[in-house]
């Protein structure tokens, strides 16, 4: 035997001799002429394998396929009929958790007895071990009571504690984790995990998860024969495949036998329903019998009725081939009214994204008038296939995976900001911080003078500006509007990180009207330049509902409003949506981005927009890097834009950056500005 090998099992067979009477066994064992008194039952058939030091071997297989017999042979409780087992080191086995306990002895005596049998004789060592087991088993005062008075849970805990405390070199566990509650299982798992490095382990379980967790190698037994031996993952896969095959065979037999099919009786009221047609269709309405997973597909139904129905309902239950009811959808649950076409036909198209996993599916077309069944028939079997290999369960729900969602940036004052690490523009907030700090003075002046109680942040992105604003307008409610649903969770996270609780977050495109679905485009180069209309077809889009500022302001009554607008060229629509409020009230100040290049990308003429702003409001440039004109509210207002300056201003702004991408911030005030 190799030095690193701890268990070597060589060509083991176990034949159970089935005797009619127990005493026949004695007659046979002692018979000098070796007369046979039995019938043979092969529990194990020529099994051999080796376990190395520190290795964990899982043995899996159905009940009655020889797992426990094998363990008992390795443990030395049973004797193999043929072959032999060599083991090196002390073996501790938990074959039946409680079998090592004597019912008449108390828990303590049982512990002591078992430890002595395991060779712990020194009093100190014994005491230490007893304490250890007592603590593990958590039996409390009952430890002084006979084991026969214990609950099965207590017995299991005690048995497990004793078996694992004897410092074995080889630990044999037979279905140990099948008993006991969840806590006990976890405790055992922890204990096993702790011992794992020093000992070799043989583990029998029906829980594939535990096997995967603990075992390096797996032995699959089938009817006493070695069906598979190899890496744990491969072994489990092999076993599950075999199980699935058996199940299928069994099911097939059952289906043949079944008199009444799982989908119920078929029925056709020929007087009332005629010319029924139905088929599976693809997204182009062509008939199909096969579909790929994730395809768009549907069911087409056409029929004629000989009378006027009271309340026509079409139901489409779907089963898999084994009779599992996958889903059932009817026109009734969606309140869908079926109408006749000009040729008196009822035609229905039922369309859906295929979530079904590969397999064959049975569909029943059922036509019901109120409670009267008119028609019930089986659609063709739909075969769903896939090019991928791994599927689990009945359906695959639409999903995305992400990891490393957050990255923390703390580079300014006490603000904390979390951004998506995959978002290129998210990381650029570092550079923005300094210039928002300049604005701080202005914000403070606005607070002192007007004390706005509602702050609206249109185009919130990661919520950075809202965070800055919240530190100044401490008591105000902050309303953020952000169209990108991907950013919503970050904003919530950032609000939490900065202890901002008085806020409302709206996932919508801020526009001129409410509740209209529009495409919103995601810039692959970073979320700060997401736009309603993307620059080219490569941008991903998703449907987002619109909301108007008018509506938000109506819902949030306040004494004074401070609005920050930054929507990458969509500002004209944002203003349009608030125009009625802005013209009729003077309790507001707006800080908006003015970016000619982006305005053009959204289909607006920058000059027209600027002109219309000047017509309706007082427009001033915010003090920033371009044409700095003082740093107080009064100095800004004193330098308000005049109509004859528009062309020069626009020219100056546009050309400030390369590619005519210059931009600036504007402060907008009502004509009748409050003092």
């Amino acid at each position, binding site marked *: 035997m190799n030095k690193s090998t701890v268990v070597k099992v060589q060509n083991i067979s176990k034949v159970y001799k089935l005797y009619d009477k127990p005493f026949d066994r004695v007659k046979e064992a002692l018979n000098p002429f070796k007369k046979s008194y039995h019938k043979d039952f092969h529990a194990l058939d020529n099994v051999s394998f080796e376990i190395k030091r520190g290795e964990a071997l899982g043995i899996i297989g159905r009940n009655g396929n020889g797992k426990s017999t094998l363990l008992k042979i390795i443990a030395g409780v049973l004797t193999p009929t043929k072959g032999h087992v060599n083991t090196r080191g002390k073996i501790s086995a938990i074959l039946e958790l409680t079998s090592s306990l004597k019912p008449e002895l108390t828990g303590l005596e049982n512990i002591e007895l078992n430890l002595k*049998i395991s060779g712990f004789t020194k009093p100190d060592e014994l005491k230490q071990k007893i304490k250890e087991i007592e603590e593990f088993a958590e039996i409390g005062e009952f430890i002084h009571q006979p084991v026969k008075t214990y609950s099965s849970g207590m017995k299991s805990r005690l048995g497990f504690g004793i078996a694992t405390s004897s410092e074995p070199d080889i630990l044999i566990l037979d279905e140990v984790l099948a008993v006991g509650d969840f806590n006990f299982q976890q405790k055992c798992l922890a204990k096993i995990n702790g011992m794992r490095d020093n000992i070799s382990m043989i583990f029998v379980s029906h829980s594939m998860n535990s096997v995967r967790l603990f075992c390096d190698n797996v032995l699959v037994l089938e009817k006493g024969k070695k069906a598979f031996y190899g890496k744990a993952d491969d072994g489990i896969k092999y076993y599950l495949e075999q199980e699935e095959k058996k199940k299928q065979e069994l099911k097939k037999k059952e289906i043949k036998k079944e008199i009444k099919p799982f989908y119920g009786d078929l029925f056709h009221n020929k007087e009332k329903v005629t010319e029924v047609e139905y088929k599976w269709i693809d997204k182009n309405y062509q008939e199909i019998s096969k579909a790929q997973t994730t395809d768009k597909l549907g069911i087409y139904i056409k029929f004629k009725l000989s009378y006027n129905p009271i309340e026509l309902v079409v139901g489409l239950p779907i089963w898999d081939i084994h009779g599992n009811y996958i889903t059932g959808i009817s026109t009734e649950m969606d309140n869908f009214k079926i109408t006749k076409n000009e040729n008196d036909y009822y035609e229905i198209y039922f369309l859906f994204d295929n979530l079904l996993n590969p397999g064959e599916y049975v569909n029943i077309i059922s036509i019901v008038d109120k409670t009267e069944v008119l028609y019930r028939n089986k659609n063709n079997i739909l075969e769903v296939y896939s090019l991928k290999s791994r599927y689990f369960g009945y359906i695959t729900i639409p999903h995305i995976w992400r990891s490393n969602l957050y990255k923390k940036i703390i580079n300014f004052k006490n603000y904390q900001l979390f951004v998506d690490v995959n978002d290129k523009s998210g990381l650029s907030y570092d550079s923005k911080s300094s210039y928002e700090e300049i604005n701080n003075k202005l914000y403070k002046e606005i607070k002192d003078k007007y004390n706005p109680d509602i702050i609206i942040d249109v185009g919130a992105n990661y919520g950075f500006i809202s965070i800055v604003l919240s530190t100044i307008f401490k008591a105000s409610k902050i309303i953020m509007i952000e169209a990108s649903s991907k950013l919503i969770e970050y904003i919530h996270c950032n609000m939490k990180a900065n202890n901002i609780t008085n806020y409302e977050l709206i996932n919508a495109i801020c526009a001129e009207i409410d509740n209209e679905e529009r495409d919103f485009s995601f810039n692959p180069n970073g979320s700060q330049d997401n736009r309603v209309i993307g620059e080219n077809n490569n941008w991903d889009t998703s449907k987002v509902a619109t909301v108007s500022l008018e509506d938000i302001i109506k819902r949030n009554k306040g004494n004074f409003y401070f609005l920050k607008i930054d929507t990458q060229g969509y500002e004209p629509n944002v203003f349009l949506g608030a125009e009625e409020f802005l013209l009729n009230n003077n309790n507001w100040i707006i800080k908006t981005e003015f970016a000619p290049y982006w305005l053009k990308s959204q289909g607006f003429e920058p000059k027209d927009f600027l002109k219309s702003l000047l017509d309706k409001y007082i427009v001033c440039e915010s003090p920033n890097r371009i044409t700095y004109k003082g740093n107080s509210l009064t100095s800004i207002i004193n330098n308000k834009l005049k109509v004859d300056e528009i062309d020069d201003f626009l020219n100056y702004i546009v050309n400030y950056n390369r590619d005519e991408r210059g931009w600036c911030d504007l402060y907008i005030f009502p004509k009748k500005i409050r003092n």
Partner: protein
Amino acid sequence: MLVLKTFFRFLKDIYKSRELLLTLSKNDFKEQFLGSYLGVFWAVLRPTLFMLIVWFIFSVGFKGHTDSDTPFVLYLMCGYIPWFFFSDAISGGMNSIVGNKFLVKKVNFRVSILPIVKVLSVLYLHFILIGILIIAFLLYGYTPSIYWLQLPFYTFMMFLLVLGITWIVASLRVFTKDISQIIGVILQLGFWVTPIFWSIERVPEKYLTFLKLNPMVFIVDGYRNSFINHIWFWENTKYLPYFVITTIIVLVLGAVIFRKLRPHFGDVL
């Protein structure tokens, strides 16, 4: 030869587990007698009561039956105490394996020591009874004689005999319950064919050889020879070789049968 080899390997195995043997037998003894309030008293009471009754019947009821001038009660004790050990050890040892399933199903446990544990545990009680026997002799005015020293020899020989028998019956008992009944009957019969309260000298010559097939005759005789008749065991030339050979045969047979049946215990229990 093979039989002897098996036998010696068997003895070696047992020698290896001698510490465990002691612990377990002490446990067994304690468990049996120390659990109850009166403890060892019960253990002693049973044989004592029996002897009292027999003594009462024979020395008060039907007087004058022994040839010697030894008090009948001492004569009786010399016979009954070894017999009590013999029958108690065999009937207890018989169930030693069946009653300890939990140990048989344990890894690496030498099941062969279970019968020994039981016999040892009964032996402890036997020592107590011998103590009582000695006290009884002293009370009747007997002075300790050098012949008393051969008592350990007889006890040891009886121990070996009992052990061999126990190995046989304990392993057979695993397979069938009938053994308990059979042994019960044999022990009962044995009680009457062993000269416990009657004297072997009174038996007619023609039955004597037949009676002496019972190895316990040698033991009971031996106890009496030590205490009463003052005869050395080697002086019993006729019976000694027969007994030794019988004991060795029983012991070897017991070990071999046990070893042969041992692999099947797991299948049945």
